[in-house]
């Protein structure tokens, strides 16, 4: 947290059919529905303190509308607003309440075609079912995969150097991991916390604004296997897993929501401190970097986006 950006705070995902999507995110992923307004439904994982982290919007295409990062104070918003403008970006200031129970937001379009935003305030409703005073270990009313929190997103885009500049040099993120093809960075993972990544980008020429996945945290490998069972029990579209990544070393399973947006549930993996060296994977080890066990790239995982 070099410049006050704390974490990935929310993501708004477009879905084709709201009823199917709500059933998936609520009954299968185990997120909690916390709000409904207009054409949008709001969710959070049970450990998350803010009122929501996932927003679904019914639309005529799948994909991501925007991803928001929480900063540590309102004053920081003005500082980063100025820094983004100085960097040459057009920044829209959205008033408090434009997103329900959320303070003002600074929104900008990154050169990869993805919209990101910063915010400092959102209603804090606390951990679901256990609260913050003599809290029990976990709530007993969870269903499905029991995802604990929205964790990070991965996007495909062309101008990786452009978003590197914004996240590292303007917003104060660290580069934690990268895949290199010679001198060219073809995958880059950024954090602003102890998590190995809050956001990541993969090089995909000609693909603009593409959404690869939103990821949700689970506690254990057994939970990842449990998620795999839920996927089979309910005939959810499986992408790949359970397996482990070389990049970040997280244990993972990937699948698709009913509109084709990719979801990940994962556990474990590496952690970050600012004195950690950058982890580098070479292009000729990319199979192992992506799928540590099979060591083979899979076309669907690398090319399907919404």
């Amino acid at each position: 947290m070099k410049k006050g950006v704390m974490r990935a705070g929310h993501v708004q995902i477009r879905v084709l059919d709201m009823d199917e999507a709500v059933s998936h995110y609520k009954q299968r992923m185990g997120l909690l529905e916390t709000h409904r307004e207009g054409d949008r439904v709001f969710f959070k994982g049970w450990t998350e303190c803010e009122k929501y982290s996932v927003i679904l919007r019914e639309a005529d295409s799948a994909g991501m509308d925007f991803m928001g990062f929480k900063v540590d104070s309102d004053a920081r918003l003005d500082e980063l607003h100025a820094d983004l403008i100085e960097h040459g970006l057009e920044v829209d200031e959205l008033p408090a309440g434009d997103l329900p129970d959320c303070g003002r937001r600074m929104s900008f379009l990154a050169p990869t075609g993805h919209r990101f935003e910063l915010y400092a305030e959102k209603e804090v409703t606390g951990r679901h079912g256990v609260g913050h005073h003599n809290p029990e270990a976990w709530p007993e009313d969870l269903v499905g995969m029991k995802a604990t929190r929205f964790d990070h997103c991965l996007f495909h885009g062309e101008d990786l150097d452009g978003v590197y500049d914004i996240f590292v040099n303007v917003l104060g993120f660290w580069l934690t991991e990268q895949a290199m093809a010679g001198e060219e960075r073809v995958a880059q993972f950024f954090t602003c916390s102890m998590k190995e990544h809050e956001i990541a980008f993969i090089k995909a020429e000609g693909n603009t604004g593409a959404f690869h996945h939103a990821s949700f945290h689970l506690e254990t490998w057994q939970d990842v296997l449990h998620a795999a069972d839920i996927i089979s029990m309910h005939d959810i579209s499986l992408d790949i897993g359970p397996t482990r990544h070389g990049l970040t070393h997280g244990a993972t399973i990937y699948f698709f929501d009913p509109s084709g947006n990719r979801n990940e549930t994962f556990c474990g993996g590496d952690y970050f401190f600012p004195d950690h060296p950058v982890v580098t994977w070479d292009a000729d080890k990319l199979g192992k970097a992506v799928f540590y066990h099979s060591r083979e790239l899979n076309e669907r995982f690398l090319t399907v986006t919404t």
Partner: protein
Amino acid sequence: MYRIEVEGTGVEFECGPERSLLAGMEAQAKKAIAVGCRGGGCGFCKIRILEGDYDTKKMSVKFVSHSERLDGYALSCRVFPRSDMRVVALEDVEGNKIIDTGIIKL
């Protein structure tokens, strides 16, 4: 059950009205149409329908525009047969050499 023919591949499979063409193909372990998200969102399984009656579920306009819909284009994971059908796939299922596609540059 209806008979579905994927033009130019020699692949035929049977598909009931409750199943999408893509799910029907996968259920019979046939490979003629590329399988992506299976949810109408990614465009991988795009086809053009040459013959036959069908219903569709909502699919992403990013990959099938309204005018394309009128010309018989669709995502096969969202197409439910109502008669025998003849279709053509737009993506080669053998396209699994991502290094050569330029989508990911290595």
